[in-house]
């Protein structure tokens, strides 16, 4: 049992493979290129959000504001687009909003010491509330074609969404693996004291990490609105659960210090796959949530239990 859990990536790929096989045997046309690419497209929003949330969890935090930021950033972007602003500027504005919320989270956690789950929970609610205010309770839609193309168009046979998602995942993974900051983020999650002793400003790192998470959530929200050609003020709500589930399934440990973005990406695909299959089998999203909720608890419980066992064995006495 321990050995399997150690090799998380193998376990994950195993789950994904089994899930694929099971789904394929029940559902016609499941293996069609069309359907698979579509699954990836539908999972892309979660995958993008997961890039940021993974980093936050690594530094022993959590980001529950993902849902709210998705809604509000998309709403800002959409509102500006409806008033005729250049698409590029709209997207930039939406992303900036997400970044701002994220940085705010970071400052609260790092400088004021507020527990991350409270901070991000509240900030998420504020963002969701602001989305409602901005849209006056209604939705907006009917965006310019070039915008909708980002969410629904194809390029060389693959949905544009997928390209965008891959860019995020690739950038995120490279950032964590190959930059100074990436190393320090992992180190912070492993042993904050050591990092501080090297004279590194750990508060700054935390603030940046939360900022990135907000930025990713915003980009995810913008992509979502492009996919749906709509922004509804509570659009982002369901993504909180799925993003965290993707990270948890992807082996990102809530104990901090562990986690690979490309694995969170696989986790997002698994979630997308599971939802897609269950949808096709006729299961209502609510019931799907039960399963996903249960999965999160089980995975976390197992990883916590495992970690506690290891701690008990490694102390000197």
């Amino acid at each position: 049992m321990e050995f399997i859990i150690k090799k998380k990536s193998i376990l994950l790929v195993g789950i994904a493979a089994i899930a694929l096989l099971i789904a394929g045997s029940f559902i016609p046309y499941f293996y069609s290129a069309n359907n698979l690419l579509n699954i990836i497209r539908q999972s892309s929003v979660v995958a993008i959000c997961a890039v940021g949330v993974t980093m936050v969890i690594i530094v022993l935090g959590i980001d529950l504001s993902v849902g709210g930021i998705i809604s509000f950033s998309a709403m800002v972007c959409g509102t500006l687009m409806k008033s005729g602003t250049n698409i590029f500027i709209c997207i930039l504005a939406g992303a900036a909003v997400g970044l701002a919320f994220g940085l705010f989270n970071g400052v609260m956690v790092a400088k004021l010491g507020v527990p991350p789950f409270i901070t991000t929970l509240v900030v998420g609610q504020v963002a969701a509330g602001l989305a409602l205010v901005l849209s006056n309770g209604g939705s907006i839609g009917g965006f310019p074609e070039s915008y909708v193309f980002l969410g629904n168009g194809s390029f060389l046979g693959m949905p544009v969404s997928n390209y965008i998602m891959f860019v995020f995942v690739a950038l995120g993974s490279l950032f964590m693996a190959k930059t100074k900051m990436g190393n320090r983020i992992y180190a912070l999650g492993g042993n904050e004291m050591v990092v501080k002793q090297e004279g590194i400003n750990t508060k700054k790192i935390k603030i940046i990490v939360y900022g990135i998470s907000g930025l990713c959530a915003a980009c995810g929200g913008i992509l979502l609105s492009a996919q749906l050609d709509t922004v509804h003020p509570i659009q982002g709500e369901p993504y909180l659960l799925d993003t965290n589930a993707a990270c948890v399934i992807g082996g990102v440990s809530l104990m901090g210090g562990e986690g690979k973005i490309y694995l969170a990406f696989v986790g997002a695909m698994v979630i997308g796959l599971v939802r897609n299959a269950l949808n096709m089998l006729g299961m209502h999203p609510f019931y799907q949530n039960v399963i996903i909720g249960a999965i999160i608890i089980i995975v976390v419980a197992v990883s916590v239990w495992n970690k506690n066992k290891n701690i008990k064995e490694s102390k000197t006495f």
Partner: protein
Amino acid sequence: MNETILKMQGITKFIFDSEGIALKNTNVKILENINFDLRRGEVHVLVGENGAGKSTLMKILGGIIPPDEGEIIIDGAPAVFKSAKESKAAGIGFIHQELNLCQNIDIAHNMFLGNEIVKNGVLNMKEMYKRSRELLMSVGFDVNPKTIVRNLSTAQQQLIEIAKAISCNSSIFIMDEPTASLSQNEINILFKLIKEMKSKGISIIYISHRFEELLQIGDRITVLRDGKNSGNMNVSEFNYDELVNMMVGRTLGKMHVCTHVPQETEILRVENLKISKRTLPLSITVKKGEIVGLGGLVGSGRTELAQSIYGARQFPSGDIFYMGSKIRKPSPRSSVQKGIAYLSEDRKLDGLVMEMDICKNVTLTYLDRFFKKKIIFKSRETGIAQKQIDDLHIMCRSMYQLVNTLSGGNQQKVVLAKWISEMPVLLILDEPTRGIDINAKAEIYRLMDKLASQGVAILMISSEMPELIGMSDRIYVMCAGSISDEINKSEGFTQERILQGTLK
């Protein structure tokens, strides 16, 4: 080998709070006028009992806390460190007892944390791995730098820390009990490395208790006792008796009262208990009305033993008999219900609830016993608290004062009050007078004697020689997780014999 590269002169440090700021009004000095010097290429061993001041002195050198008086001179120039980083930059490499590496990343990433090698904005992994490998080989450690640190042993991680310090061009190393968790083989490897470092002109301050080691590896010895310089010795002129005398030779004060007489009934019997899988089994007993002292170095397992008996900690094997019957599942709650009390080592951590007042803290443990009907009656509660405040002479403005505003001595009294507000049968005390002024100490000793004469069985962990010798009827000495010696008062307690037991 004769050139002095480091001088610490007149170092004085008053007792300090959690921020490192001196509590000058209590006038308790942890270090007083310490002088210490280090020559190039030597291994200078720093020796002394628990609380002698070795760690504090090194923490000052390492930039972790500032000295209140005195100066540090490196290579002829005065040095002031405001942080660990500044000390490192001055060429001081501190190898702590607790490992200072991030367990979740690999060796190379640890070694270059803060100093990552970058090419075109991106980590130059190839170069980092290459240089790590070179550094590791230079300390004789043949290992793949891509290994995740968590998968390495303590000894191996220590070598990595040494390699890392060398890469920062450290010319002065502080090694704090480096062999504490090493096997003999690993110790040999370390010593070989130390000799090589010496030949390259690196100087090492080596803190240890193990006499055989300091004979093997040391050049000079400096002894600290009670925060003061107690003597120096060249290893070439080593004299065991003289060294022991420098460490413990002091006149014992007369503040310890002893009017109680131990009875014959056994209250506690511990049989073949192992505090961890790797230690030897131990057995102790405590009789009614007896004060049993538990001596030993910090890290010898005394607190672990106490917590195992009390139920605050799990242990792999052994039996605990209390009042004749075996304790099946020890837990703090069941222990309290049976009449076992445990005053822990760190009152801020698990002795007091800092945010509550004196009254609430005092009544916390036996709350259910005081108020059997589950409702707290204020008058009864204040009565209980006031009695304790009076009996123990707790200095406070009112019993509703928050305990975090009290002095250390008074805080300790509140903790004690909590445990004796109902007379326990077995009282376990873990460093009961640590960090307290003389008057409070004397009062606590008087109290202990009174309790013992009323039949309370007391197990007292103490790192203070005079306290151990003055208060105990019997002394167990612990070393590396098991009992190394048992001394009866009738045999005569001597500091030398106790010290020997701690060093086995």
